[in-house]
Every structure is written in C-alpha cells, then in structure tokens.
C-alpha cells in the first residue's frame, strides 16, 4: 500500500495506442514526424500536471506493420526527448531504448547528455521488444534466446549505471594553480566484462545531475530491484495489483501501472472504439485497458492507488484523449489528492521521491 499521492505519466509516441489513431484526430497523417506537434503535445502534458512523458520507440519497423496500413514512421526517442527538453521546464522525459540494439558506452552518454540538458529530468524506459528484424538490422550478433536476452538487458543496465558513476560528482576541479581541470582520482575505469561485451574506460560525459538517469522498466523485462521504477500491466485490476505487490516485494523502489485509456469525448467511448476498431484491430497488450468515462478513470486510479506509486497512461488517440485527461481527469485527481503534480525545479527523481544514488566507486573506496 502506498501512502503518497500517485504520480502520473503519459506515453506520447506517435498518434496513440490504438493502431487506427492516426485517422481519428484532426492532425494530418504525417503529424507523427512534426516537431510542432511533438512540442504542442509535450507542453500540454506538462501544463496538465503529468510528472513524466515517455516516448516509445523501436529501431526498425516490419514489413507486416507497413503493409497492415499502420503508422510506419517514428523518430529516434532520445532525439525527440532532447528536442523537447528545451521547450519544457518540469516534466520528466523518458525515451525508450532497447539494450540489445544499443552500444552501452554511447547509450550512457546519450542519456547523461539528456539529463544535463534537461537539468535532471531524464528517464530511460528499458525495452526489449520481440521485434522480428532487430537482429537483421544490427550489424553484429544480437542475443536472441530468451535467457540470453534477459542477461543482456541486465548487463547493459548495470554497465550504463556504472558508466554514469565513472565520474564522481566533483571530478571537475578547475584547479588553476596546478593546471588540473579534473582530479583524475575521481574518474574511474568501469572495467565491465560480460558474455557479450566489455567496456574498459570511463564515460565521455560527466555524471548526470540526477546521479543516475531514472531507470524505468517493465517487470517482464528487468528484475524490479535493478530498476528505479518497475512498470506492471495486467488483464484486470486484480492482476495489476498482484504484479505490483510482487514487484515491490522483489525490491522495486517505485511501481507504475501501465493503463491504456479510451475516454468519452465529443462522442461516447463506445462509439469511438467501434469506429477505431472498424479500421484496425486493437490487439491486447500487457497494459490494463480502460474504455469509459473520465469519472470511471478516477475510480480506477483511486483503486490502483492502493497498490502502485503511479500510473502511466497510454491514450488511445493522443489528439483526443490527452485533452480529456488534462481537462477532466488530472484536475480531479489533484483536487482530491489522489495524485500529485511535479513542482518547479524538481528533478525527475525528486518528483518520484527517489533518492539520488550513491556512486558505486566512492562506495567501493569507502569499503
């Protein structure tokens, strides 16, 4: 059971969680690539009081997706997050990056740079898609067996955290008297060796302002204890609660429930769903799905608040459901103190009430 009010996150990738979402809003089909649309939506989420915007992503798409008639374009998540970092002031920004497609050294620098540019608002949604084609796209051997994949994800997360720690917070000393810009004793080789890769030296980028960028991962992808925020889904509320309890029991510092939402808008949710489903089938995902009224969503949030620290919402149609959320749902959740909004000048860790992590290298020295 959680005592603090909920934090609210929203995924703003593409046109929405429903595959026919690109038809439903007032935006043109290529709005998923439009920097002005991205800016508008992230600002709407920030102004509405969301603590976190996540940006789902994948390196490649599939011919099956293309030929199904669904949206087949998407810009890199870290690039999008960095772009909006300068247009926002308090909302957290977490792009999804799948470790198997990434170079750990580059990934650590990218996310640290996002954290520096956003003054401590960066997160990382760790993904591991069952994406046919990733192994073909990447120009090296990519682990594909389930056990190897799990190990690889854990190893990359551990390595990236170590790279963030490779600079102590006060490594830059600018000692004019001795001419030393850094104290080399405060910068450490990470010296990681795993079955599939090794990283020798320190990061190229100084330690991020949050110490570690907030690591957010589904409980199905990463051991909840290795994450800062564990994401749980489920077919019904009981399963979400059960998985939240399990994640917390396994050591998750924070747990967020993934919930897809399709709400009453100008037309009823049922009519909207029927129209969308007529265009494309909305296959179930791991997230809990809610189709109903804003009031119904308030009740669901209240129910979930017993078990989780927050909710990540996936609007079925961003252009339609996001305004309903910010106008009719979030204000009620804040008014009733079921949920809370971030304050100005808070880091994402601060807004999630997560401690700033100790540096593993200074801990090793102290031991």
């Amino acid at each position, binding site marked *: 059971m959680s005592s603090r009010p909920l934090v609210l996150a929203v995924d703003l990738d593409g046109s929405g969680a429903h595959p026919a979402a690109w038809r439903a809003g007032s935006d043109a089909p290529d709005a998923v690539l439009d920097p002005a649309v991205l800016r508008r939506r992230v600002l709407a989420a920030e102004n509405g009081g969301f603590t976190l915007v996540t940006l789902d992503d994948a*390196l490649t*798409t599939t011919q099956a997706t293309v030929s199904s008639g669904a949206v087949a*374009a998407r810009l890199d998540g870290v690039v999008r997050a960095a*772009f909006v970092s300068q247009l926002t002031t308090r909302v957290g920004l977490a792009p999804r990056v799948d470790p198997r497609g990434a*170079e750990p050294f580059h990934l650590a620098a990218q996310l*640290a740079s996002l954290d520096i540019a956003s003054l401590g608002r960066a997160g990382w949604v760790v993904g591991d898609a069952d994406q046919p084609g990733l192994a073909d796209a990447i120009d090296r051997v990519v682990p594909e067996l389930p056990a190897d994949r799990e190990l690889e994800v854990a190893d990359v997360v551990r390595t990236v955290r170590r790279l963030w720690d490779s600079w102590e917070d006060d490594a830059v000393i600018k000692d004019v008297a001795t001419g030393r810009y850094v104290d080399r004793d405060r910068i450490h080789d990470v010296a990681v060796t795993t079955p599939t890769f*090794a*990283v020798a*030296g320190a990061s190229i980028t100084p330690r991020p302002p949050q110490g570690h960028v907030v690591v957010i991962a589904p409980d199905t992808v990463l051991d909840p204890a290795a994450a800062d925020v564990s994401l749980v889904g489920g077919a019904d509320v009981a399963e979400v609660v059960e998985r939240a309890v399990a994640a917390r029991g396994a050591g998750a510092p924070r747990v967020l429930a993934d919930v897809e939402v399709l709400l009453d808008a100008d037309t009823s949710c049922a009519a909207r769903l029927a129209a969308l489903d007529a265009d494309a089938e909305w296959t179930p995902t791991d997230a809990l799905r809610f189709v109903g009224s804003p009031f119904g969503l308030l009740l669901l949030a209240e129910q979930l608040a017993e078990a989780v620290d927050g909710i990540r919402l996936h609007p079925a149609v961003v252009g339609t459901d996001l305004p309903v959320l910010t106008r009719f749902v979030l204000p009620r959740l804040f008014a009733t103190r079921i949920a809370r909004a971030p304050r100005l000048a808070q880091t994402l860790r601060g807004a999630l009430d997560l401690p700033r992590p100790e540096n593993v290298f200074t801990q090793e020295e102290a031991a």
Partner: protein
Amino acid sequence: MSASARPPDRDHPITRPTATVHLGVFFQGVNHHTVWSDPRSGSQTDFSSFRRLAETAERGLFDAFFLGEGLRLRETNGALHDLDVVGRPDAITQLSALAAVTSRIGLVATQNTTYNDPADLARRLASLDVLSGGRAAWNVVTTDNAWTGANFRRGGYLDHADRYVRAAEFVRAARAIWDSFADDAIATTTREPSWSRPGAITPVAFSGATVSTHVTPTVPRSPQGHPVIFQAGDSPAGRTFAAEHADVIFSAHGSDLDDALAFARDVRRRVAAAGRPRDDVKILPGTSFVLGDTEAEARELATWLVREQISGATALSILSHIWGEDLSQLDPDGPLPGHDPAPRELSRTRGTGAAQGDPAGLARRLRSHAEELGLSIREAVIATDRRPAFVGTPSSVADRLVRFVRTGAVDGFNVSPWLVPDGLDEVVDRLVPELQERAAYPTEYVGTTLREHLGLRSSRDVHGARDAIQRTVVGA
C-alpha cells in the same frame, strides 16, 4: 581597405571575385587550445554554454554549429590527461536539444563509422535532420585502434587498412536507409486506405565486406534530402573518401595560402576523378581568430593566448607524450631532455588532436627550434604548436579571409573559439560586419536548410537516381 584595392598578386589570382565566406563554429573542447582557466570562461559542461555559442553563431549567420566526438578519455602514458577540458556531451543528443532553440543554423555531429551501427546511427542522424527541418550534418570520422575499441562491443576489430572501406560502405548503407521512403510515401488525408502507400517504403538490404544490415527504416527524408556529409581525414585515403562521398571537407589547411591552394587543387582533382563537378565539395578548414584594435594589440593578445594554452605543465605533458615517459618533473623553463625518445609508434591514447607521427622526428623538430633560438622546453613547445591562424584587426583579418576564399583556396572556415561560451562574440560583432562591408558575407539567411546555406546541390541530384527512376515510372 578592401582586398580588391590591393595590387594584384600574380601568384594568387582572384578566380572567384564574388565568392562569399562561409563560417561554422567548432566547439572542440578537449584540447589545450580551450583556455578553461581564464576567469571569463564558463562551464564546459552546462547546456547553457552550448546554447550561448549556438545562438551567437546564429546571430552571426553562421552556416553550422559543429560538435566533436569522444570515444575514450585521453591519457598520457597510461594516466588520464587532466590538464585540458575533459568530458563532452553526446553530439546528436546535444544538437537535438539545440535544434529546439535555434531555427536556421546547421547542426553537425562528428560520428565515427567504426564503433557505430549503421541502422542506428543513420536513424539518429535522420531524426535530427527531420526535427531540425533539414539542418543536420554528419562529420564522418574513422578510427581503428584497440585502445578506443575497448569501450565498444566489437573491440578493436577493424584493421587500419579497412577503416575507409568500412566508412564508405557505412555511408552507402546510410544513404540507402535515408532513401527508403518515397517522397509521396505517407498518406495526405486520414481517409486514405493505409498510412503509407503500398510499396513506397523500401526495405534496405545492404551486404558489403564490412557492413551488413537488413532493415525497414522508419524515418523519411528531411527538407534537405540527406544530412550533409562532412569529412575531416587528411590521409590520401581520407581525401579520396571525401572526394567520393562528402559534401564538405573539414581540413587542416587554412592558415597558409599556398598550402591551402595546394590542398584545394588536390581535392578538386580527386573530386573530378570521382566523376563529380570540381566544386562539388566545399572546403572549410578549422581555424581560430585573435582580433585586436590594432595589429600590435592583436599580436600581443596572441602571444598571451599561446602562453595560456601551453602552461609549463602542458608543455611537459606534451613532452611526456612524445618521449613516452613521465617527464613532468623537469623544469619547463629549462632545456629539453638530453636523450632521444625510444623508437616506437606514438601512443594513440592522447587523442586525434595530439602530435602525430614519428617521436624521433617530433623530438628533432623541438630540438632544432630550441637550439637555433635558445628556447626552453615551454618556449620550444609553444614555437612548434599550432598558432592562431588569423591575428589582426577585424579589417585586416577580413581582407585575408576574403583573399583565401576568392583565390579558391577555401570556401570558408570552421572557427574554434578559445573561450567558452563568449569566445565567438567578437567574431560575430566585429569580423562579420567587416566581411559584410566587403560584400563577402550574407546579410540574412536566405534558405532554411544547411544544404541551402552551403550552396550544395540537393542530395537527390547527387544520390537520388533510384528515386528519379521511380518517379519517372509513376509519372509515365
């Protein structure tokens, strides 16, 4: 006085009397040319410093803002090099943030082809290009040493001889990825049967000797088609690579006019041999400026600057790198070591900006300067270091820049400010107006894309043959 008022110089004829100077800014950071110790220096890490420089450059109508790349922190004889600025942001991430607060300036990311993945890097560059409205560029660099490779999944896997083989295949794969969407691939209304027109997104299957990728890309072309390609390698292989693949050469030949003209002739010969128009590749050498109210004041400032850049400790550190042993206990104001460096390959751990070549030759060069002029260690290192290329009043420097451009030696310059973040202010406030007075610099941005700023042909004219064929078929 403007350049045209001078007596004609028969050795350096003006071949392009109306050519204008292109300027870029290179935020280099991690070397001794950035004077971090000056009280006027700001943070080398904070985003606000990068933003300040980019905004100043955009105010000065620069074509491009340029970031370097770091793959491993520099070392001297196994110890982290602590005297220069250390640490930098990931280039594409930082430029994506800068794209939101700038509107015209080009955004150039240095990215190597050895320790990146083609499908991933091509997509990140294309994403920056689309988000910035066609302002992205990629400075293609190669590396191959095992010490750098130890930070990456594949280690030091690539032979030195193969580095440009990989680079060329990598660029070809990237261009294929950038061309995967036909220009009319995406539905224009929400009532069309599918989001993308059937057959309009072409999967890429690239198999070369060093690059293999099969991918269905997710990013269409930007308003400038492809990101602009920069290239910076100076070896014969690097120059040939540039002639075949690059739009811009970021050269090291921009301080001596004869040297710059010889370089330009060599590059244009290679460009023509690659079957391209001779002026298809723009030449933008790296440089730095020291400006003063008088020539004497500028010279005095330059003398002060090089002494700030090469402290006694820095001189000894450069010596330790060349000799391959710790010489930090020597007196920088005393004589050079009496013994020669042991014969060996110079370590690669000091980074690409450090002295390159044969240690014995470098030591000989230092010694001949020292003996001839009676110089100490520090003075000898200063005498052999790269000096600011253009020192003078804004007016005299402008004359020389225009001369470099109008003789056809260069198309412009990539300026590295030695003070961060205010080091570009003087260039923009004092030098740019002098260039404008000579009708050798724009007075506003005319286009919106980097290709337009640089006067480059559209990537489609150069590389879009496949699409031209597709369009013909569709149009027929």
